[in-house]
């Protein structure tokens, strides 16, 4: 009996998490009149909400922008993080620990605090309404540096020595010798960075006003609150579903690594 109760409570909790998402999908496929009820299946099934979204905003273009920004930035985060992490883990130089603590310190600052200075910098550089504004401020990531540093610290020194004797320079040591041996860390950083970038709406809202350069979350947010949806809840919800779909698909592919990434970083955004 207690066992039954336990599972009942667990199911209830699970449903409370999943139901909003189910409703969102079903609502996006319902007609406007069906939205007032809490259902599981679409009421008066229709694709028209999706049709409206695509006709009203350049969602395809925004999707490509998001992919471009997320992929390029994640790649650069991996490169810069690996190089900085390696230096902090393996090279001996004056002030190394101080630099490391400074980098850790920046993790305690919420992005909102640096928002204004960053924005002013973008304006001065003339990067407003360009991809640079979306990419450059994110290519150095203290969490990725920290994770890379920990991973490189745990590698045996002899491996690096052997590579050096074989004729490797530091870059080759990092990317050809060490990188393939810390793939779980690389994947963790990739997933966390990619997800963070994909979901970022606040920063693009500030630096991008030019519609063809907008990312998906920005465009969807603007669409939903900016009046372009003309009050049609179904269309707004369809846009939100489109925003969530890529990450859900990625999650299905990398489920195991997602969970490990969350657990290993101890962070949840």
């Amino acid at each position, binding site marked *: 009996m207690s066992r039954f109760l336990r599972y009942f409570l667990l199911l209830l909790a699970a449903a409370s998490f999943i139901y909003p998402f189910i409703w969102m999908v079903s609502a996006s496929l319902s007609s406007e009149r069906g939205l007032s009820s809490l259902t599981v299946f679409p009421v008066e099934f229709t694709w028209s909400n999706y049709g409206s979204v695509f006709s009203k905003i350049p969602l395809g273009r925004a999707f490509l922008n998001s992919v471009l920004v997320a992929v390029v930035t994640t790649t650069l985060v991996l490169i810069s993080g690996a190089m900085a992490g390696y230096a902090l883990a393996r090279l001996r130089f004056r002030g190394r620990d101080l630099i490391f603590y400074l980098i850790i310190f920046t993790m305690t600052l919420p992005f909102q605090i640096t928002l204004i200075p960053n924005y002013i910098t973008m304006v001065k550089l003339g990067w407003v309404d360009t991809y640079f504004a979306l990419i450059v401020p994110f290519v150095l990531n203290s969490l990725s540096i920290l994770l890379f540093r920990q991973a490189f610290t745990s590698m045996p020194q002899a491996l690096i020595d052997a590579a050096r004797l*074989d004729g490797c320079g530091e870059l080759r040591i990092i990317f050809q010798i060490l990188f393939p*041996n810390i793939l779980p860390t690389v994947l963790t950083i990739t997933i966390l960075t990619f997800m963070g970038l994909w979901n970022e709406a606040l920063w693009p809202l500030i630096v991008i006003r030019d519609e063809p350069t907008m990312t998906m979350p920005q465009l969807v947010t603007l669409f939903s609150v900016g009046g372009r949806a003309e009050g049609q809840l179904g269309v707004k919800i369809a846009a939100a579903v489109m925003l969530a779909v890529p990450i859900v698909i990625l999650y299905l592919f990398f489920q195991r690594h997602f969970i490990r990434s969350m657990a290993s970083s101890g962070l949840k955004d």
Partner: protein
Amino acid sequence: MAEVRLKHIAKAYTGDSRVIQDVSIDVNDKEFVVLVGPSGCGKSTLLRMIAGLETITDGELFIGDRRMNDVPASERDIAMVFQNYALYPHMTVFENMAFGLKLRGLPKDEIRERVSKAARLLEIENLLDRKPKDMSGGQRQRVAIGRAIVRNPQVFLFDEPLSNLDAKLRGQTRIELQKLHRELSATMIYVTHDQVEAMTLGDRIVVLRNGDVMQYDTPLNLYNHPVNQFVAGFIGTPPMNFLSGRITDAGPLRFESPNQEVMIDLAETGYGNALKPYRGKTVVLGIRAESISHQPFTDRTFHRQPVVVEALENMGSETLAYFLVENQRFIARLSAEQNLSFGQRIDLFWDSTKFHFFDAQTEQAIQP
């Protein structure tokens, strides 16, 4: 042609504390030299300095005729075998061995040829497609040696390559390394803390302590003519027995232990003249376990010492007998036929021609 010359080499990490004091060693072409010493003596640091993995604080390093102080590790024409093998985990055996050659821009055919030749020599041809994690420790060690061989270097460096292997495999690999040295006729420098490895492998041995060379000589000379008490105690198993005592000359010149448990007439030891200046002073007597016998020597002089057997280790071929002299533990290596038992009182005979004496202050050997 590659002799390796170290001239007044020193290493300091921070400030004045030097981990390598002032080391000068000449390693001849095709010689097998072993660096041996207790942990923390600086032997690995010295090897890493030769390899180019550590900077040289002071002094000069030559390989062949070239000064190597500022030459990067990859251009010193050396290869190194590491204690934990240091194979690239994500590469197959073939890729591991080929990697260095590929970076040097060798043509593919030659790489393939060199790798398969080394693989044949080491009998690892069937492992070429495996990853390191799918191999045993002994196999990994062979691959690590193979990776060094394919480079065809002037000098091979070994950093405790056998210490991760079990005892049996260690013995086998030791013999194979000797064979390899003959076949490759290359200069080899080998670091170990195991003096048995040092004695069996080295043409010459460098005994290090606290970053300083204690003695650099052939294995037999180290064994028979240690220059100080440290070398005497470090080389040889079981270690040499030591006993401090005073030189007295009331009557004939004698060595007397503090409680007069041991009194040795020095006239018969060959040290009569050498120890005269030590009259009234303290010296340390050293005698090896195998220079103590349960029966009198017929062909040479001996010292008879009554002892009580404290412990016995029967090894089959021999028996190690432990006993106390002046509360110091002594070990004697006796023939196995002895029917000894614990607590038994016996007379043991010390070979008077095999005594060593050391200055108690400086620990330097006193030459007869």
